[in-house]
C-alpha cells in the first residue's frame, strides 16, 4: 500500500476565547491520496476550515493543535518550524480561500503578488518570476494576461480574482491544494467555470485537492470521496452516490434532504421528524381564489431614480393576490431590493403608484407611512439575519416591538402571549426569547426576523433574500416555515432571491428583473422550464443541478 500524501490522525484543535476554551475540531482522522480530490462538507461552524488551517499551519494565534498529528509525506506538520514551515507553504501545500477579493492584497498588482509567491521558493530573477507569473495567468485562462499582470484586484471581477488566487496557489506546484469554499461569493454562472478550471488544473498537475464546501451538490460533482463533518467531528465518509442514496448518519440525512435539486419540492427539504405536526397543513392544497376578488397589491409603472443618473427601477408593474407567492429574481444590482423597499414603503418611488387593498399608498410619503393603517399589513423580512436584529434588543423585544407600535399592546401578559404565539409559529423555542441576537444562531435569528414580520398578522410579506446567508439545512427549514405561514394565514409573499431553485419551489409566479426592467414573468414552472429570453435562460442554466445523483448512480452500477 502506498503511503497517503496526507494523513490526519485524531486531530484536536482548541481555541482559547474570552468564553473559555472552544474545541473546534475534536478527533478528525482522514487521509488524502496523491492526485485525489477529497470533499469536506458540513454545516457552518463544523470545523472544516479549521481542519484546513491546521493542516497548513495557518491557524489563528489563539488556536492550538492539542492532540493528534498531521502527517504530510510522513512528516508531522504540527512539529515544523522556521524554514521548514515556509517551505511547506506554497511549495508543498497551498490554500485557496473563500472570498477571492479579500484574499488578494488590494494595493498590489496581481502579477506582482504571483511573482512574490514564486520568488519565495525559487531562486530566480525578478524578470523570470514575472514571466512565470504571466504563464500562470495564462494557465488559469485569464483573458489578456499581459494587461492583467498590472491590474489591481478591484479592477478584476470576482471570478478573475479567484483565478488569480488559484494561480498563486499553484505557482510552486504544491502536492496538496486545500480549497476552502472556492466558489462561495461568486455568482452562479462563474461558480461552475471556476470549479471546472480548478478540477482540470488539479488533474493536469496531479495535485491532490481537499475541497471544503457546504454545498453537497458541488462536492458530489467533483469528488470521488466525501467526508462529512458535524460540530468538529467526522461523522461519515463515503463516495457521493452512497452518501446521497444511503446516508447513514442523521446529520448526513438532513444535509442530503436539504440540498435543493431541480426537482425537489419544499416538503422534501426537511426530514419527516422535523416536519412534525405541520405536515398536514403543508400538504393541504391551496384554496382556489374566488373569482372577481380584487388583487391585494397592484403596482403600476413604478420607477425609482436615485440622486444621480439612471433609473434603478423603471416601469415596474405587477399584481399579487391574497395568499399568492411571487418570486422576484435577477442578477445583483438589478433593482430587486429597491423594488421591494418601495413596495414596503420604506423609500419613495419617483413615479408610479402602489395600490394596496384598493387604496393608493404610493403617494403617502415614506416619512409618514409609519402612521398609515396599512403599515401593519405590509411587512418585510430582511436579507442578512445577522444585521436584521437590533443588537440591543432581545428576541422577545424584537418580536414585541411591532406589536407595541402597530397594535398598541402594552408590556404585560397579553403582549407576552402574542410574542410567544409568534415564536411558536415560527418554531422558535420559547427559552430563546430572552436572548440577545449575538447569542442566537443564524437560523434562529432568521426565525426571529420572520416572527417579527408576522407578529401583526400582515397580509403581504416582502422577503428580501431571507435565506441567502443561511446554511442549506437552515434554509430548508425557513422555506418550509414560509410556505406553511402562507397557507395558514393566506399571506401573500413577494420573495426576492437570486437562488432560482428556491424561487421555483416556493413561488407560483416569478418575475425576472434586469437593470430595473421586467424582462419576463409568468408561472414559475413554465418560466424555468421554458425560458423565453436569453437572460433568463442564462440564469436558469447556471443553477448547480445535482444531476450527479443519477449520473453517478448509473456509473456505480
Amino acid at each position, binding site marked *: 500500500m502506498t503511503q497517503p500524501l496526507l494523513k490526519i490522525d485524531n486531530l484536536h484543535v482548541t481555541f482559547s476565547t474570552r468564553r473559555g476554551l472552544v474545541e473546534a475540531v475534536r478527533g478528525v482522522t482522514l487521509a488524502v491520496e496523491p492526485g485525489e480530490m477529497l470533499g469536506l462538507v458540513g454545516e457552518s461552524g463544523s470545523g472544516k476550515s479549521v481542519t484546513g488551517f491546521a493542516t497548513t499551519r*495557518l491557524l489563528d494565534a489563539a488556536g492550538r493543535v492539542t492532540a493528534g498529528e498531521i502527517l504530510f509525506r510522513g512528516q508531522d506538520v504540527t512539529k515544523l518550524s522556521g524554514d521548514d514551515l515556509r517551505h511547506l507553504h506554497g511549495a508543498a501545500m497551498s490554500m485557496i480561500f473563500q472570498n477571492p477579493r479579500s*484574499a488578494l*492584497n*488590494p*494595493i498590489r498588482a496581481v502579477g506582482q503578488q504571483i511573482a*512574490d509567491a514564486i520568488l*519565495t521558493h525559487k531562486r530566480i530573477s525578478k524578470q523570470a518570476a514575472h514571466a512565470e507569473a504571466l504563464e500562470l495567468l495564462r494557465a488559469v485562462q485569464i483573458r489578456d494576461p499581459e494587461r492583467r499582470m498590472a491590474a489591481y484586484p*478591484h479592477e478584476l471581477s470576482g471570478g478573475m480574482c479567484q483565478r488569480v488566487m488559484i494561480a498563486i*496557489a499553484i505557482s510552486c506546484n504544491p502536492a496538496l491544494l486545500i480549497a476552502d469554499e472556492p466558489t462561495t461569493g461568486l455568482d452562479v454562472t462563474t461558480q461552475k467555470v471556476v470549479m471546472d478550471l480548478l478540477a482540470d488544473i488539479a488533474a493536469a498537475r496531479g495535485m491532490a485537492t481537499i475541497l471544503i464546501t457546504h454545498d453537497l451538490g458541488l462536492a458530489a460533482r467533483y469528488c470521488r470521496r466525501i467526508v462529512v463533518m458535524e460540530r468538529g467531528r467526522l461523522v461519515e465518509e463515503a463516495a457521493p452516490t452512497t452518501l446521497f442514496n444511503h446516508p447513514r448518519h442523521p446529520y448526513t440525512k438532513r444535509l442530503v434532504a436539504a440540498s435543493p435539486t431541480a426537482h425537489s419540492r419544499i416538503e422534501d427539504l426537511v426530514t419527516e421528524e422535523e416536519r412534525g405536526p405541520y405536515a398536514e397543513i403543508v400538504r393541504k392544497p391551496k384554496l382556489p381564489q374566488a373569482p372577481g376578488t380584487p388583487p391585494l397589491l397592484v403596482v403600476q409603472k413604478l420607477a425609482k431614480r436615485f440622486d444621480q443618473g439612471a433609473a434603478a427601477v423603471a416601469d415596474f408593474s405587477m399584481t399579487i393576490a391574497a395568499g399568492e407567492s411571487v418570486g422576484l429574481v435577477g442578477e445583483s444590482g438589478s433593482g430587486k431590493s429597491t423594488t421591494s423597499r418601495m413596495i414596503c414603503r420604506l423609500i419613495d418611488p419617483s413615479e408610479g403608484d402602489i395600490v394596496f387593498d384598493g387604496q393608493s399608498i404610493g403617494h403617502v410619503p415614506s416619512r409618514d407611512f409609519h402612521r398609515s393603517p396599512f403599515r401593519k399589513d405590509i411587512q418585510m423580512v430582511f436579507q442578512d439575519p445577522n444585521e436584521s436584529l437590533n443588537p440591543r434588543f432581545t428576541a422577545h423585544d424584537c418580536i414585541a416591538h411591532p406589536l407595541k407600535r402597530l397594535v398598541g399592546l402594552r408590556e404585560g401578559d397579553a403582549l407576552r402571549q402574542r410574542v410567544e404565539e409568534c415564536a411558536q409559529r415560527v418554531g422558535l423555542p420559547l427559552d430563546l426569547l430572552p436572548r440577545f441576537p449575538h447569542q442566537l444562531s443564524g437560523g434562529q435569528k432568521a426565525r426571529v426576523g420572520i416572527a417579527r414580520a408576522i407578529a401583526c398578522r400582515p397580509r403581504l410579506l416582502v422577503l428580501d433574500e431571507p435565506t441567502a446567508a443561511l446554511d442549506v439545512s437552515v434554509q430548508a427549514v425557513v422555506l418550509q416555515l414560509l410556505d406553511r405561514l402562507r397557507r395558514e394565514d393566506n399571506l401573500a409573499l413577494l420573495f426576492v432571491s437570486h437562488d432560482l431553485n428556491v424561487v421555483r419551489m416556493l413561488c407560483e409566479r416569478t418575475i425576472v428583473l434586469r437593470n430595473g426592467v421586467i424582462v419576463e414573468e409568468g408561472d414559475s414552472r413554465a418560466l424555468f422550464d421554458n425560458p423565453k429570453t436569453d437572460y433568463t435562460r442564462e440564469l436558469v442554466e447556471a443553477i448547480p443541478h445535482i444531476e450527479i445523483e443519477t449520473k453517478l448512480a448509473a456509473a456505480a452500477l
Partner: protein
Amino acid sequence: MARAGRRFLSSLPALFGVLVFTFLLMRVLPGDPAVFFASGPNASKEDVELIRKQMGLDKSMPEQLALYLYDVGRGNLGRSMMTGQSVTKDLRERLPASLELTFTALLIALVSAIPLGVLAALKPGSIIDHGVRLFCALGVCVPTFVSGLLLIYVFYYLLGLAPDPTGRVDVFTSLPPSRTGFLMIDFLLAGDIEGWWAALKQLILPAMSMALFVIAPLARITRASMLVSLGSDFVRTARSVGLSRRHVVVTYALRNAILPVITIAGIVFSTMLGANVLVEKVFSWPGVASYALDALLSSDYAPVQGFVLLMASLFVLVNLTVDVCYGIADPRVSIE
C-alpha cells in the same frame, strides 16, 4: 488631479465661512484694539481715534467686512498693530518656522509611532503591547507646555546639551540667504553644514515636545489598522504561500495598514500647526501660532484673521495632499 481640483473648489465655501466667522468673532471680542495700542503714557482720546481710523474701525461693521473681503481678495490681509508690519509679510516670514517645526515633529512622531504601533500589533496583549500603550498614554497626558519647560530645564539648564531655547537658530550663527524660508533647507542650499547643524539642534527640543503629544494617536491607529490587516485574508494568503515574515509584515500588512495612518497624519498635521501655540511660546519660536496668540490677547484683529485664514487654507491643502497621497498609495481610490 481633476478630483483634487474639484475638492479644492468645493472647499472654497468653507474657507469663506471661516473668513466671515473669524471676522465676526474678532469683533465680538470685548477688547478695543485702538485703546490698547494707544497705551503710551500720554495717549489721549485723539490718539485712540487716530488708531481706530488707521484700523478702519470707525466704519460700520458691514462696511468693514466688505472692505476686508475686498482686501483679502487682493491678497492684502491688513496690517498688524503689534509688529507694525503687513500681516501678509509677517505670516510669510513666520510660516516657514511653524511648518519646519511641525514637519519635524510629525516626522519624529511618525518614525517612532509606526514601529511602536507595528510592534504592539504583532504581539497584541503582550508586555510589549502594554508597554507601547503606556508609553503613548504618558506622552499625551503631559501638557505640551510642561513637557517643553521640563525639556528646557533638563537639557538646556541642567545638562547644557541643548542650545538656548530662543528661536530657530543661535543668534551668533549667521543666517543663510533666504530662499525657501526653511532654515534647514536654506543652510543646505548654502552649503553651510555647521549652520544646518545649529538649526537642527534648535529644532529638536520643541519638535520633541510636540511629537510626544501626537505619537499616541498615530501609534494607536497604526496598531489598530495593523491588527486589521494582519488578520485579513490577504495576509493569510501571503502566509499560505510561504512569504517570509518580513515580507508579509512590511510589504503586505504594513503597506495596507499605513493608509488610515496617512489620513490621521494629515489631521494631526493640521491640528498641530494651529495648536502649537504653547510650544512656540515656550521655545520663543517665531512661528505663526504664537504670533496669533499675542495678537488675540491684544485684540489685534488683522493678524488673527490672517492666521485663521492661513490655517484654514493649509487645512484644505493638507487634506488635498492627503487625498493625493492616498490616491497614490491606494489604487482603489481613483476608481471612485
